[in-house]
């Protein structure tokens, strides 16, 4: 062993860790809610009859999915500033994460839409429901139900990916870790603690989504079929 481990020295800084974890969770929560809305709209847009809307949604989804989040964050952060628009690091981080996860949500939701059997839509058409009513009553919730595991995994990944927000001065968990380890010079201990915290955060998120699933899908709850 060329290195002595000293966890207490690092654990002393628990209020900082806690604040970082809280900010990570906050970033993830905002981006999840906004990204889910945004992505669902983009998914609907990709199926739009207007080739302009469908094309724009496709370009958005493909551009985001094929470039790293870090690059996107830098482009948003420095791009906005170059335009003379100044927002807090938190706002920019949430915006960039939303744009990012929105693209993935759009792809997942589209798969969900496509997984709705044709017969369901025909049955609804046969009942004289309008296009909008069909989307709202027949497609949306069952589609979400079908892709719920994929969606929740994507949002947990988003939470983990938010670690790159440290680069634009958002003091989330990884930023705190960098700060603490350059302060205490206990890098190894710091990162082990942070890894544990991330695992806990992802478990917390999964538990949260499980609970949300119970609320969203009353049938699953009543029939006891797990997601």
């Amino acid at each position: 062993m060329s290195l002595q481990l000293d966890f207490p020295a690092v654990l002393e800084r628990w209020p900082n860790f806690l604040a970082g974890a809280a900010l990570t969770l906050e970033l993830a929560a905002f981006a999840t809610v906004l990204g889910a809305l945004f992505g669902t709209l983009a998914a609907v847009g990709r199926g739009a009859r207007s080739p302009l809307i469908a094309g724009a949604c496709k370009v958005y989804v493909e551009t985001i999915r094929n470039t790293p989040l870090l690059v996107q964050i830098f482009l948003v952060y420095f791009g906005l500033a170059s335009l003379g628009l100044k927002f807090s690091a938190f706002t920019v981080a949430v915006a960039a994460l939303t744009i990012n996860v929105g693209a993935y949500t759009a792809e997942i939701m589209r798969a969900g839409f496509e997984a709705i059997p044709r017969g369901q839509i025909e049955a609804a058409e046969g009942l004289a429901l309008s296009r909008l009513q069909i989307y709202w009553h027949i497609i949306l919730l069952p589609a979400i139900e079908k892709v719920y595991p994929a969606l929740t995994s994507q949002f947990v990944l988003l939470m983990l990916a938010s670690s790159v927000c440290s680069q634009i001065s958002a003091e989330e968990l990884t930023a705190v870790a960098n700060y603490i380890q350059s302060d205490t010079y206990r890098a190894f201990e710091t990162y082990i603690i942070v890894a544990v915290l991330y695992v806990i955060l992802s478990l917390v998120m999964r538990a949260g989504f499980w609970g949300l699933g119970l609320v969203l899908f009353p049938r699953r709850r009543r029939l006891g079929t797990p997601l």
Partner: protein
Amino acid sequence: SADLLDDITQAKKIRISTDVAIPPSGMMDSSMKPTGSDVEVAQLLAKDWGLELEFIQTTGATRIPNVLTGKADIIISTLSVTPDRAKVIDFTKRYATLQSDVGCLKSSTVKDWPDLKDKPIGVSRGTTQDTTLSNMKDKDLKISRYDDDATMVTAAVSGQVDCVASSATIINQIGVKNPSRVFESRIPLATFDLAIGLKKGEQRLMDKLNAWITENVKNGKLNAIYKKFHGVELPPDMRS
């Protein structure tokens, strides 16, 4: 491996942990070769000792872990001497100094600490400037921490922050990058000694490094390097 110095001599190679993303101490020239004051100091050292030189690329945050875990032999990377750091690694004598200031946009009205209230100050995370500002709890400062100097300077150049805490050299650099955003030093922060860092308990290597620094301060070579990149000379008390 009884002794790091023996290891180095035997390998005929010295591995130096240097951040090449913190101009003007470490950076890339237009043909993308490492250059900067720390880079030249490292090159001088290797040449004097007749060793092959290997740069271990690092960021501000990984400078110290690199020597602690034996991935590099020594650090030459604007490492300022602080009591906290001295608990973990050993420092040689200083080979240069670093004047740190709070610099602001030329057009801003900031004169002293109270004017900084609610103005985000850009700083490189985990640097001595960061620690110094973070300890001024009474002053109600708003600190924006970036992962390295480059990102911080980019933030200043692009307009995300109007104040930065950094070395005087870097503060002056900002205006060069973007003439419409010239920064100047407004509030002096501290002067730090920069030293070479190495793992604790390597006394023989430490002695040899100290001797080398003493000699090169005396013959003016270190001063020449400093002046070349920072535009000013080392402080008088160091040159005499």
